[in-house]
Every structure is written in structure tokens, then in C-alpha cells.
């Protein structure tokens, strides 16, 4: 299949519409969501001991171009997600220039209303997280090959663990509305599936947040040494 200039123009103008923007948010959100699952499963190997986790890290690094492909795809998804979210939010604020004196929330959740706050907070944390282990390697006692030791040394510090746990709770809140929203935006118009989405989406968000949080908790509790 060859993408012509006309197709590109069509995709671009679609992505600028209200529905198109939401589809972009859902699609890029899906890419980030898949990364979160993969990254969590990778991290959880810490419970299988240092050899397993370090071997996994070495395997990732040995894939070379594949790893860079995934990184670039993720970077593009994150950039599009942020730019589109900012654009949609500004347009949404413009759509109600004068607010209400009294307005009740009936169906919407706290997580849904704070997407524009939890999103940037997660981004800030990811920036810090990358600096610690990937870019500047500012983590305590950094070793290139012993990932296991790096993680344990870092999470033994309650401040690092605490920030991590709070960040993952914020991520969980973002996913709580994000997963449901992603499925609804491109979803099947059928109440049967919707009930499923309404229950499965929060459950998945909780599983992801809990999966990540389990690691610092285990380190602090001395289960992982």
C-alpha cells in the first residue's frame, strides 16, 4: 500500500477534527498502554532473582535496532498524545467561556475530571525516571550490567520509593479513565460491551498500578534484597 500526498492530507485533516483528535488520543494511548504492560511484566521478573532480571535487561539491549524502533515509536506516540491532549483541552475550555454558579457532577468520576492534571504529572515523573536510570544515570551505585542491584539500591531509599508509589497511583488514576475512554472512543455501540468496558477498564488500571507498586513495596519490606 502506497500513501499518497492526498492520503496524508486526509489523515492530517481528520486528526484535526474533534472526533479525529479523540481517535489520535485513543490510538497513541493504546501504544503507551501496551508499553506499560510490557514494562511491568519485564520489571516483575525482579521477583525471580537477579540472574533472570539482568538476563532480561541484557536481552533487551542486544536487540539493538528493534529496541530503538520501539523507543522511537513510543516517543512519537507520547508526543502526539501530549500535543493532541493540549489542543483538545484548550478547545474544550473555549467551548464554555462562562461557567455555572452551581453545577453538580452526576456520572463523571474524579479521575475523568483530572486527566489534564494527572497526564502532565505522569510525564514529569517519566522524565525524572528516565534521567535516573537511562539518560543521566543519577541512580545510587549505578552499574551498567547489574540492573537488579540498581533497582534494589534505589528503592531502599524511602524517598525514591515514595515518589515512585505516588507516581504510579497517579498513573493508575489516568488509566482508570483512559482505558475506558480509549475503548469508548473507537468502541462498539452496544450496551453489553459497555458494561464490560466499565468494569474491565478500572480493573486493568488497578492491576497495572499494583504491579508497579509491588516492586518498591517488596524492596522496602525486605522481600527483594
Amino acid at each position: 500500500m502506497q500513501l499518497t500526498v492526498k492520503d496524508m492530507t486526509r489523515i492530517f485533516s481528520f486528526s484535526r477534527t474533534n472526533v479525529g483528535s479523540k481517535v489520535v488520543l485513543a490510538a497513541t494511548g493504546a501504544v503507551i498502554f501496551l508499553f506499560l504492560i510490557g514494562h511491568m511484566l519485564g520489571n516483575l521478573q525482579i521477583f525471580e532473582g537477579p540472574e533472570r532480571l539482568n538476563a532480561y535487561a541484557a536481552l533487551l539491549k542486544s536487540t539493538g535496532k528493534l529496541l530503538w524502533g520501539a523507543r522511537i515509536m513510543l516517543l512519537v506516540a507520547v508526543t502526539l498524545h501530549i500535543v493532541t491532549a493540549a489542543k483538545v483541552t484548550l478547545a474544550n475550555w473555549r467551548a464554555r467561556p462562562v461557567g455555572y454558579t452551581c453545577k453538580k457532577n452526576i456520572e463523571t468520576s474524579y479521575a475523568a475530571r483530572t486527566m489534564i492534571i494527572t497526564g502532565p504529572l505522569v510525564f514529569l515523573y517519566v522524565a525524572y525516571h528516565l534521567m535516573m536510570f537511562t539518560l543521566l544515570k543519577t541512580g545510587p551505585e549505578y552499574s551498567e550490567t547489574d540492573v537488579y542491584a540498581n533497582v534494589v539500591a534505589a528503592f531502599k531509599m524511602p524517598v525514591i520509593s515514595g515518589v515512585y508509589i505516588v507516581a504510579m497511583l497517579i498513573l493508575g488514576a489516568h488509566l482508570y479513565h483512559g482505558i475506558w475512554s480509549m475503548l469508548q472512543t473507537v468502541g462498539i455501540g452496544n450496551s453489553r460491551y459497555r458494561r464490560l468496558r466499565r468494569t474491565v477498564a478500572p480493573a486493568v488500571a488497578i492491576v497495572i498500578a499494583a504491579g508497579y507498586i509491588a516492586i518498591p513495596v517488596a524492596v522496602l519490606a525486605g522481600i527483594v534484597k
Partner: protein
Amino acid sequence: MKLTLKIWRQDGPSQKGGLAAYPMDDVSPDMSFLEVMDMLNEQLIARGERPIAFDHDCREGICGSCGFMISGEAHGPVKLTTTCQLFMRHFRDGDTIIAEPFRSRAFPIIKDLVVDRSALDKIVQAGGFISARTGSAPDANAMLIPKDKADRAMDAAACIGCGACVAVCPNGSAMLFTAAKIGHLGLLPQGQPERRQRALRMVNKMDELGFGACSNHGECEAVCPKGISIDFIACMNRDYMRASATETMEPVKRV
């Protein structure tokens, strides 16, 4: 019942508005909200003040003319109800009730509680129709439609265009309204030939009029007097995606 009504008063589109308090005695629990407004207006006229402007027509909950925010909820605290069908028995003696107009950039205020909702008509004019020759009514059952399809089309067609969905949406979005209009035609055979063009024309018109985008809060469905489901928004998004991938929008041809 004794009540205090705090009502948004605004002399005209560009004038400054504000809430004014009106204490009311002798309100019967069997009165509708609009009847209380009538009673208040009679008192205001007797005192030589300007009566409060508000929209209403059938007062049977089927026309979509009435509607404002009542203590923070569109059409008030009772589900599946329009303002005209909201009765005072749902309030307690001594309550203070705040009445404000529906607010959205696309719904400019005309006076007091009256807003200009013609933006919704413009969305329908953009594509909410079928270009079929009209004639005498077709024979019953000449066109077979499965019961579940007919039911779902009717669920969408129940939209009375009151604008409550826009009023409560945190983003001032008209997606539920537009989705209902697109949904009811898209489910029936008569709506098929123009289905994709309709999605493009109506959704693009909605964007152009300054309505926001959907963030899937679900507030619209919760206040809709006809209980229209946000499932229709998912359907509309799919129609719009398919149409964007296969067609470019054509202007409506006048015959």
C-alpha cells in the same frame, strides 16, 4: 411550600447578568416548575417589574423547548424528566433553588433563561435528513426492519433536541445530540445511501459551530430527559472514521 428561587436575570445578549433571589410562599407540591415560574411572573407583573423570560411550549415533556439548569442539574434533580414535567413535590419546604441558563459558546444567551439553541438546528440542516422523494405513505411492512434495529433507531430518534447534553458536558460538546440524529438514520435502510456523507457533514458542522469534544464523562446521558445512551457516540465515531477514510465531504445539493 415556601421556596427561595435564585434566578439568572440578564436583560439582553450583551448585558451583564446576575442571580436575583425571589422568596415564594404558597407553592403547591403539585405544581410543575414552570407553573411556579408563571406564578412568580404574575407577581412580578403586579409589582410592575419585568417578568422572567424562559422557553416553553408543549409542557408535556415532548417538544424540547423548555430547559435550564436547576440547582446544578439540567432539567433538575429527577431523571428522565424535562423542566416542564418536574414537580415541586421533589423539593423540600424551605429549599433554595438556583435556576441558570444552559451555558455554551454555541448557545448565546438571549434574555434571562432563554438561550439561542439554533446551533442544534444547523447541525441537523447540515445532514440530518434523507434525500428521498416524498409521496403517499408507504404500505406497512413494505420495508422489513428487524425489531431490535427498529427499537434502537427509536431510542435515538427520541431525542427532542433540548440541549441538556451540551449544557452539562464539561466540554460543552454536542456529541450526544449529533450522535442521536446520526444514529437513528444510520440504523434504518432509508438512511444508508447518505450515511457516510451525513456523518462528515454533521460532525464537521458541530466542530465549526464551536462545540467541544467528548471526554467520555457520561454527564449527558445522565441528564438526558429521553435517556439516550452514549453508545450512540461510539457508533457516530465509527461512522465518522469510516467516512473520513473513504470519502471527502460534498456540499448538500439543493433540488
